């Protein structure tokens, strides 16, 4: 049997779907008021939330370090908070611009490659911006606690700072190695759940999808 011989079966499908057509017609008319594409909506809100958090952190960091440049602990903590906030804003705007630029009436391969690229950027930046939290909580806590009136300099900073930095570095290294270990030994289902737990969507899946579209384009 060749492909053209399948055309009658395909056309038969048309007769068959007419029975369901009324339902679909009804849906088509009902849906005319829905305005935001479902698959992109959560990603869009996620990026907006990220930008808002970034603005808050950048503002907090700048307000903190500018009047405290003479104390290096405060200067560094404020600058890290400020820079991280700016990184969140830049990344959020970058992804949001790509999301808003998706035009569903464009050629299928172009649109799907665009979406796969957004997904890949999103999950990769999730790691890059998420993993440093093992250490980031320290400067951000310093900023917040100082603003709240705690005198962190009353105790020798090295006494609490160094152990927390060591724990943070160990935690970060353990996360990376633990993730790699589980990925290399666990079954695919666990691997995929692990990816989703860490980055929301599997980095491997996102990259594989992008590669599939690129291959389809090349062939």
């Amino acid at each position, binding site marked *: 049997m*060749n492909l053209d011989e399948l*055309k009658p*079966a395909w056309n038969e499908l048309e007769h068959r*779907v007419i029975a369901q057509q009324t339902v679909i017609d009804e*849906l088509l008319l009902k849906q005319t008021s829905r305005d935001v594409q479902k698959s992109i909506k959560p990603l869009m809100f996620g990026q907006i939330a990220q930008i808002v958090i970034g603005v808050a952190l950048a503002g907090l960091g700048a307000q903190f370090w500018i009047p405290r440049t003479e104390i290096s602990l405060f200067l560094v903590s404020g600058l890290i908070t400020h820079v991280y906030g700016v990184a969140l804003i830049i990344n959020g705007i970058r992804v949001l611009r790509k999301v808003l630029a998706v035009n*569903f009436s464009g050629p299928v391969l172009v649109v799907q490659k665009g979406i796969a690229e957004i997904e890949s950027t999103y999950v990769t930046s999730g790691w890059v911006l998420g993993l440093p939290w093992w250490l980031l909580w320290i400067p951000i806590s310093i900023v917040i606690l100082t603003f709240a009136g705690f005198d962190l300099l009353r105790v020798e900073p090295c006494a609490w700072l160094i152990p927390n930095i060591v724990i943070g570095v160990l935690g970060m290294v353990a996360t990376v190695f633990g993730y790699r270990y589980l990925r290399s030994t666990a079954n695919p289902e666990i691997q995929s759940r692990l990816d989703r737990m860490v980055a929301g969507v599997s980095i491997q899946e996102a990259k594989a999808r992008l590669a*599939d*579209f690129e291959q389809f384009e090349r*062939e």
Partner: protein
Amino acid sequence: MTNSGHNFADLPAAQAEFSAKLEQHRGIVSKIVFTYCSNPEDRKELAQEIAAQLWRSYRTYDSDRAFSTWMYRVALNVAISWVRRHARRIRHVVEVGGAVDDIAAPERAQDSRAQVLRSVIATLDPMNRALLALYLEARSYREISEILGISETNVATKISRLKRRVVKQTQDLERE
């Protein structure tokens, strides 16, 4: 003069125009939905998403270009995105039942063509499913190339691969 986009100031008129165009191409959404979903609930959900996106994109539809081409692009983009989001669930459904059970439901035993079609669709990735659907819809290579965004030569190469695949799958099914 290019009539790019629609004026939604007169919303009822725009909706009426949109509905009339949809009526002329009513089979497209259903066939795309059937190509990508096997479960009735999934079909309903996907049809809803396609409908919502068609209306949303209608503002940017250029009426100098074929409505069907535009509609295929939107419907396929939504369907492929939907498959991506529901990949795990769909994989499970395909393993259990086959991708397009309803194509052949009543005459499953008699109609080997429907069986082959079902089997071919189930084994294809989303882009090749789109290609198959457009070919079976008797769209020209030029239109397929416009819808998918690949060259006509690439369309021809992929169609010829699909043809070989169908022949092989038919032989495999006959052997089983």
